[in-house]
């Protein structure tokens, strides 16, 4: 654990100045390679329809699912396409799930004049008991019923169902399965303690200063200014910092220029300008001391559709000259010191949260791993680039650390797979509300939250009970 063994020297700085105080070298990067290539579409043309995404997704995952299906229901299980179904015959079908939800916001309905609908306000969850599941493959679709949890599943998941077609045209499901964990990657992790700091949701530009001191404390701990010698030497083992999205706060998103009169907004600058300047200064402080990977998030100045492209370096003039600053995509995949990291800024998980009965971010994260796809709800309810050659969100290899940012609280779990996979699942909490970041120890794949706090007028003993 971080700083556990340094207790003896904890109070070392409570004394008169000593001679030359030690400085610790930052642990060098053992190996770094960015594997986010698939998330950077070279050419970007939006002239295609989104149907191609589903086609390539199904084509890409079909082999895996057929393999799983055979393993589960016997190698003699009959695999059929929907067009070949015969009533009453037990067979197995692989297809894409579609969940018909009444409450799902539909832009076509909203602008349709005959319905005269008022635009629906955003709800936390759009599920309803009357939702239905439909299975689609390349040519046909069929309604599903039976041993399948309608509430839990979301549109876009590739699934293999085992059952038979009924007389009324529905498919009665007896069992179903997903792609399950992808094949494992070899383990080349470090033998000594090395930490990666995961933080997300810094929320700069929010106009409220409570999290600012905590952010400064975070930077100070990582750069080795804060803490006694023991803690500083431990901080020198932090080999990387990953900022998983939402560096800017949601408040910077207000589009006054659209709503207000021009004469009121002419001289005002966007709130994000000031926030990006602050971000630049913070990144500069971090970059002079540790390699940093910056992922964009929902409220950051980059494109909206997944995969989000890196922030442009012209916005960060102070920090971008440093080679330690890496502006990366969302989702982000990389090999850090021999450990494969894969993570997003949380849009995929929060979108599934809205359309599924699953409430726990960690549960959803685990489910996406088992479903073999980072973000099944894209492009249905989550914006996505219209891929047509291949779907880069399909999980082909099992990462060692799988994280999502901007979760409501910190959670982590070590998942063991049947084929020897070991995955550390981490939900990185939103820093602006929880003042908590995560430290992942690469040696043994453990994770520890690290909380920062100042003191306020109302703080009595309430500090600890707040439960960061």
């Amino acid at each position: 654990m971080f700083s556990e063994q340094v207790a003896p020297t904890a109070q070392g700085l409570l004394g008169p100045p000593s001679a030359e105080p030690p400085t610790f070298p930052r642990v060098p990067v053992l190996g770094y390679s960015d594997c986010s290539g698939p998330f950077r579409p070279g050419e970007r043309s939006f002239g295609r329809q989104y149907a191609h995404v589903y086609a390539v997704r199904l084509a890409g995952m079909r082999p895996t699912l057929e393999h799983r299906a055979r393993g589960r229901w016997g190698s003699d299980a009959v695999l059929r396409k929907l067009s070949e179904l015969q009533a009453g015959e037990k067979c197995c079908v692989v297809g894409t799930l579609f969940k018909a939800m009444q409450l799902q916001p539909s832009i076509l309905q909203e602008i349709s004049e005959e319905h005269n609908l008022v635009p629906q306000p955003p709800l936390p969850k759009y599920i309803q008991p009357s939702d239905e599941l439909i299975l689609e493959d390349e040519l046909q679709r069929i309604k599903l019923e039976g041993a399948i949890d309608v509430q839990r599943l979301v549109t876009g998941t590739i699934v293999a169902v085992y059952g038979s077609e009924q007389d009324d045209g529905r498919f009665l499901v007896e069992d179903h399965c997903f792609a399950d964990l992808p094949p494992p990657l070899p383990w080349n992790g470090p033998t000594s303690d090395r930490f990666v700091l995961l933080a997300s949701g810094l929320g700069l530009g929010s106009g409220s200063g409570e999290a600012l001191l905590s952010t400064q404390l975070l930077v100070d701990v990582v750069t080795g200014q804060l803490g006694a010698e023991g803690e500083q030497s431990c901080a020198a083992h932090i080999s990387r910092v990953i900022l998983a999205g939402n560096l800017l706060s949601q408040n910077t998103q207000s589009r006054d220029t659209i709503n207000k009169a021009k004469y009121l907004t002419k001289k005002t600058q966007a709130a994000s300008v000031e926030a990006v300047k602050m971000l630049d200064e913070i990144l500069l402080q971090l970059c002079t001391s540790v390699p940093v990977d910056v992922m964009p998030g929902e409220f950051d100045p980059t494109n909206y559709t997944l995969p989000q492209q890196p922030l442009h370096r012209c916005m960060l003039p102070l920090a971008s000259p440093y080679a330690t600053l890496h502006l990366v995509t969302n989702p982000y995949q990389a090999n850090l010191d021999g450990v494969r990291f894969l993570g997003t800024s949380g849009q995929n998980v929060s979108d599934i949260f809205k359309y599924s009965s699953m409430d726990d971010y960690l549960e959803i994260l685990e489910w996406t791993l088992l479903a073999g796809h980072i973000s099944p709800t894209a492009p249905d309810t989550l914006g996505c680039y219209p891929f047509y050659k291949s779907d880069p969100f399909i999980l082909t290899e099992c990462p060692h650390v799988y994280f999502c940012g901007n979760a409501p609280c910190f959670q982590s779990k070590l998942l063991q797979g049947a084929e020897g996979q070991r995955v550390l699942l981490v939900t990185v909490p939103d820093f602006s509300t929880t003042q908590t970041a995560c430290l992942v120890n690469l040696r043994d794949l453990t994770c520890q939250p690290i909380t920062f706090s100042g003191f306020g007028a109302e703080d009595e003993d309430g500090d600890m009970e707040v439960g960061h």
Partner: protein
Amino acid sequence: MADELYLENIDEFVTDQNRVVTYKWLSYTLGVHVNQAKQMLYDYVERKRKENSGAQLHVTYLVAGNLLQNGHVCHKVAVVREDKLEAMKSKLSTIASVHVYSIQKALLKDSSPLYNTDYDIVKTNLHNCSKFSAIHCDAAVPRMPPDIPRAQTSLQGSSQRENDTGAPSAPAVNGHGPLAAKHPSQQHKGIMGMFAAKAASKPQDTNKETKAEASGVSTASSKPPTKNNIINNFFGKAAMNKLKVNPVPEQPKEEKEVVKPSVAVAEPESPPNPVVEKPGKRTESARIQQKDRKSKTKHVDRSDNEEERDPENTKRKRKRIKQLQSDSSDEEDVPPPPTPEEEKAPSPPPVPALKTELEPTTMEVSAGGRKRKRKRVLKSKMFIDEEEGCMVTEKVYESESCTDSEEEFPKPKPPAAHKQPVLPMKKEPKEERKTLKTGAAPANRANKQVSIMGFFHKK
């Protein structure tokens, strides 16, 4: 004794200046390692309390350690007031570090003054923010501009270079510190290219004055943002005059390298106003440059204006310029003008060489003895741009005297001036302007409309 010095310093900061002295602030101010700063603060507190137990000192501490929370071990880092220190320590299962965070005279209600102090001191030391830190990173080296595109691949090579011991790394990286200070400032490219702030060029000032301004003038011919008019508004015409001059000598080379990147940027804007561009550009670059230099150039302006102007009007001018500049200070900070003297030396030589476009306000000043009110009027100016081979009409804010002495920009010589002619021509423009001024003064009076009543007094 050096040991005692810091105690006195801290005492002065806390008691006399009533500051919030955080360890970081002390570390940057005294130039010591952060750990030493923390120890110094502690030492000061101890001694002060020993000798005077009624001393009004409030201390905040930083406590860090492990804590069992929600079923997992959480590492907590907290800044606490002295009275809550023991309570926090008892909550932690293991304590990783305790040290003094800050000392101040007053009791703090919340931690925002701590944050503000730290923020301010870091902001002023952004370029060597890891200098006094306990961790140094070899890989954190700023790249030169051409290297940036080739970026990431070379990182692995450099970061593999290990540094096993702490001591040798410290001077190495400290060496990087000042380097880092320079490089980031030189690396503004592209969009920022025009506004590139030149940190390193100041020493070259005195040597390169004459040449510099010539080359600067000639090379500066192309790029102008249309903000010229706005900039002209901020500074008085006279102020702009001097402003232009001083940045030029200070950035001889950079003009050239700035020219290239900014050509592309400014291309669309260059046709309209290549002339006032020069003043504009220089005022702009003056504006964007570092504060101290800016303030110095402004001092020059003010000083020159003051000395050249009619003594009766001196006070009025001073007030007006200061007011103008303080109005514009939402964008740049204008420190009060302290030392105009040192700037006087560089200024006279560059002043005459200003030839074209510029500031006829010097003339009006030398005429002296006249009562004038300076007004800013939007006028259309037409001239031939030799570079582009076209006639250019532009609207420019000019400050004019409303009583007499008209200042209009004298017929500008083509912006593509050369180095050689500048030197010999040094004296010419001045005379030219003088004659122009006197000659034009009565004639142009008729065209000016100073107030609405001026309408009726045309004859």
